[in-house]
Each structure stands twice: as C-alpha cells, then as structure tokens.
C-alpha cells in the first residue's frame, strides 16, 4: 500500500508549482516582445495550467477535493509551490531565466517519474513528455541566443540569473516524506533531481557568456513547500479567484 501522505504531498507541490507558474506566464499574453514569441510563451503557459489540472485530478482520485475547489479556494499558507514561481514577472529577461531554471528541473522530474511506482503518475509523466521537450527546447534556444548577443542582453540575463538561483534551489526543498517517497519508488528524490538539474543548467550556461554563481556559496530560499510564502502569493490568489469567489457554488 503506497504511502498516501507522501504521494499527496508530492502531487500537491508539483501541481501548485505548475498552476502558479502557468498563471504568471499567462500574464505575458498580448504583451510579449515579439508576436511569434508571444504565441509560444502563451502556449507553454497553457500547457502548465493543463498539467496542473491533471495533477489535481490525480489528487481528487485520491480523495482530495475537486480541482477547481483546490485551485481556487485555498489560501497562500495552504499552497506548496516553491517561492520561485510566485515572484512577479519583471521584465522578459526575468521571466525567461525563470522559465529556463524551472522547466529544466520539471522536464527532469517528469522523466524520472515515468518510472514511478504509482502508475497514474507514471502514465501522466509519459504522456506530457513531449510538451516538456518543447519547453526545454524553447528555453535553451532563448538563453543561448540572448546569453551571448548584446552587452545589454547578457547583463540583464546575468542579473536575473544571480537573483533567481537561490529561489530555484527552493524547488528542491526536501519533503518531510523524502525517505518514504524514495524507498517506495514513487520518486527518486529531490537530491538526485537537483544534481541532474545542476548538470543540465551548467552545460547550457557554458555555451553562453553568462556565469553560473557558485551554488555552494548560496543559501537556497526554502519555505514554499511548507506554506511559507512571499508577500506576492496572496494577491496572486486573490486575483485568480476573484470571479470564482463571487459564488463558489455557481456553474460558470
């Protein structure tokens, strides 16, 4: 019998990450720097929100409330997303670097999950592999391009990278159930994911004029996984649920 608590904790943090980042990225629709890029970025935002819904659906099958209620009615201290994803969008360099750091981890996470001992999760991971492949393809091409292009683009990206790395490390905040998750084969664990992520990020950055800060000298920004968030999350949730809360029982 799989450890339900451990499994649910994993699913919640993944779903919350996807929802909040998808929501943030959707804020760029219509405001992008380039028409074709606007379309691409919006597509990926849609993918994320769709993936979060699929994960909330898995939670529902495990006895949690329905996806709409879970997504639109919880308060900030009940969300388990990393603080990385709730930060405001900033300029395009900030959003692109966040997209690169997060999606690299996400693709690796789902790759690992294709062999999860929990079949529904393994199936979902296999299904969305293709979407994630495009996301990392997109991020890599953009970071490579802008990370070596002009003085301004390099300095902007470097600045965003420096700012975001501590937050990105927060993705790998260990779960209280980390051991069970690993021994039961649900997921191979945050440590392993972090190592793979670091490899991938280092490799891509080495192809640019950017410099990766020394991870060993950085304090990761934890707290998101246990419901401790920045001041940005509650306003985001208030906005997201503004219409829904006019009447949560209504059929919109």
């Amino acid at each position, binding site marked *: 019998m799989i450890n339900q608590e451990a499994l649910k904790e994993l699913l919640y943090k993944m779903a919350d990450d996807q929802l909040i980042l998808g*929501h943030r990225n*959707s*804020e760029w*629709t*219509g*405001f*992008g*720097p*380039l*028409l*074709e*890029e*606007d*379309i691409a970025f*919006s*597509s990926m*935002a*849609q993918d994320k*929100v*769709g993936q979060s*819904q699929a994960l909330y659906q898995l939670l529902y099958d495990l006895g949690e409330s329905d*996806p*709409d209620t879970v*997504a*639109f009615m919880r308060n900030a201290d009940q969300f388990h997303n990393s603080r990385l994803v709730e930060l405001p969008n900033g*300029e*395009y360099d900030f959003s692109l670097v966040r997209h690169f750091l997060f999606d690299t981890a996400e693709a690796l996470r789902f790759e690992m999950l294709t062999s999860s001992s929990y079949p529904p999760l393994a199936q979902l991971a296999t299904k969305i592999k293709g979407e994630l492949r495009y996301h990392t393809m997109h991020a890599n091409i953009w970071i490579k*391009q*802008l990370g070596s*292009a*002009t003085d*301004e*683009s390099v300095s*902007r990206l470097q600045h965003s990278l420096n700012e975001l790395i501590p937050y990105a490390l927060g993705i790998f905040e260990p779960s209280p159930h980390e051991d069970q998750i690993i021994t039961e084969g649900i997921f191979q664990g945050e440590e392993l994911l972090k190592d793979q992520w670091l490899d991938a990020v280092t490799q891509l950055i080495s192809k640019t004029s950017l410099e990766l800060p020394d991870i060993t000298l950085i304090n990761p920004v934890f707290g998101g996984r246990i419901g401790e968030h920045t001041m940005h999350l509650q306003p985001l949730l208030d*906005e*997201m649920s*503004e*219409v*829904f809360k*006019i*009447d949560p029982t*209504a*059929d*919109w």
Partner: protein
Amino acid sequence: MYGGGNTFEHIKTNGLENEDPQKLAQFEARIQRGEKIEPNDWMPQLYRKQLIRMIEQHAHSEIIGALPEGTWITRAPGFKRKLALMAKVQDEVGHAQLLYSAAETLGKSREQMIDDLINGKSKYSNIFNYPAFTWADSCFISWLVDAGAIVNQLANARGSYGPYCRALERICAEESFHLKYGHHCVIHMATGSQKQRDMMQEAITRWWPPMMHFFGPSDKISVHSEILMRWKVKMGSNDDMRNQFLDMYVPKIRELGFTIPDENLKKNETTGRWDYTEPDWEEFKRVINGDGPCNKERLAVRRTAEERGRWVRKALLAPKTEYVAPLA
C-alpha cells in the same frame, strides 16, 4: 476579430486612369471568373493600397482585441474557463500573425504596420475601445463580438486576394470553438444564479450600442464603392452584414430571457430587414478618432510592449538574416 465598416470611408478611387487598361481588364476578368489574385500577379495600385489597409486593420484588431479579453485570463473562474480563455486569446494573437503576414505579401513590412498602429495612424476595430468591466463583459465579447467578426470573416473569405483568403480559412477553423465557448459562457450566466443573470444583463445593456456600431456607419451615410465590390475587396454593405448578425443572434439573446436595450429592435416582416433605433454615428466617429474610454490605454499598452521588448529584438538581430516579404 474584426468589425470592418469604417475601413473604406474617405477612400479616393482615383489613379485608375494611370493603369494599363489591358492589364486592368485581365485582372478584373480573373476576379470575375472567381480566381484568386496572388502576390506575383499584376494589380492596380488602388487594389494593393486598399487591401493593405483592410488586412492591416484586421490584424491590428486581433492584437488589440486580445486586450479586453486578456484582462480576464488571470481571473477566469475555474480550470475550464481559464484554459479556454488562454487558448482563445492566444489564438487571437496567432491570427494577428497570419494577417500581418498576408498584408506583408503586398509590400508593407510588419514593423511598419505596427509602427503605424502605435502612432495612431492605422485604425482597428472600434469596439475594442470600450472597457471590459466584469466577467460578463468578457462573455459578451467572446460570444457576440466574435460572432460579428465571423460574419465579416466568412464574407471576406470569398474575396479575391489569395493570401488573405487562406489566412481567413485558417482563422475560421480555429475560431469554431471561440464562438461556442462564448455562447456556452453566456448560457451559464443566463441559467445560473440571479447574481450571474444580473451581471450578464448589465453587460448586454452596456455593450449593445458599441455592437450596433461594429459593422460601421449605416449605408445611407456611408461611402459606396462600386469598384471595391467589383474587385471583391469589400464583400457586402455595412447594413447587409449588420442585418445578417441581427438575424442570427437577436433570437439567441432573447431566448435566454435577456432584454436588448432598444425597444425599436424588431424584424420588419415587409422589408425582411431589421428595424432599430439609429445608432449614434457621431459617438462612433468620436471614439474611432481617439476619444473613446480606452483608446489611450490600448495604444499605451502596445507602445509599452514594443519599448520593453526592444532590447530583446535587438539581441535577436543577426547580421546574416534580412527582412524580405513572404512568398505567399
């Protein structure tokens, strides 16, 4: 989304006497045969100019139209609506790309067109100069403004310029869910709680006048252009399009129990056309020339997006690629 109408006001149909009469005759014969004009074909200057203007305005309408609807993406109630609205607004931006590309085949660059939008030189569909106050407003736009645009698009898809027609075919295919989604939203508002019904009725009351403006000034005060009709650039009169829309959608609005704020609105059994209170064409003129509630904001958003994105585009410019007009 596009609400034609105003495009062909103030056109000058001169300059034709400078065109080669034989080429002109062949060109017109091709159109009469129902064949498409392609970028490599000879075409009179007036045709090229009017098409660029029309397609460009359509493209601008899509990108500006993404703003009042996009307002509600972050606030859409529930996953189903959130995903659908994200997809819909994204489609609109995609449509802008298709349309700019079609206009580019006629020789105007995309950057030039966007420049003209931002500095106020080129127009876009007037209805987007109004604010979307509530979720119900977004439902109205998704259903009825889209419906109006589709009436225009279906007509224009039978036009003469190949690239524009092909763009419209793709657009119509993608739009099939937009209209259904919009109607679905309004039906839910109508059949939901009293709060939902009231919100929807209020939105309908507010948006009806701009919707009546959507197809452009009434025929009797409009500039007629025989030549643009003959060249299948303009496919129907403003009143024709408006009547088609009213035929299709007034019954659907009324069957949901909503009141349309015009007691004179009814189908005249004798003429087969709709009777209605004459819309305020002075207001229309005022708004389309810059004095509407949202004109400044819409352009400020585009301007800001362009400015903020400039460093990105600069970083993308490589010496080895060069702008050329697309082939088809």
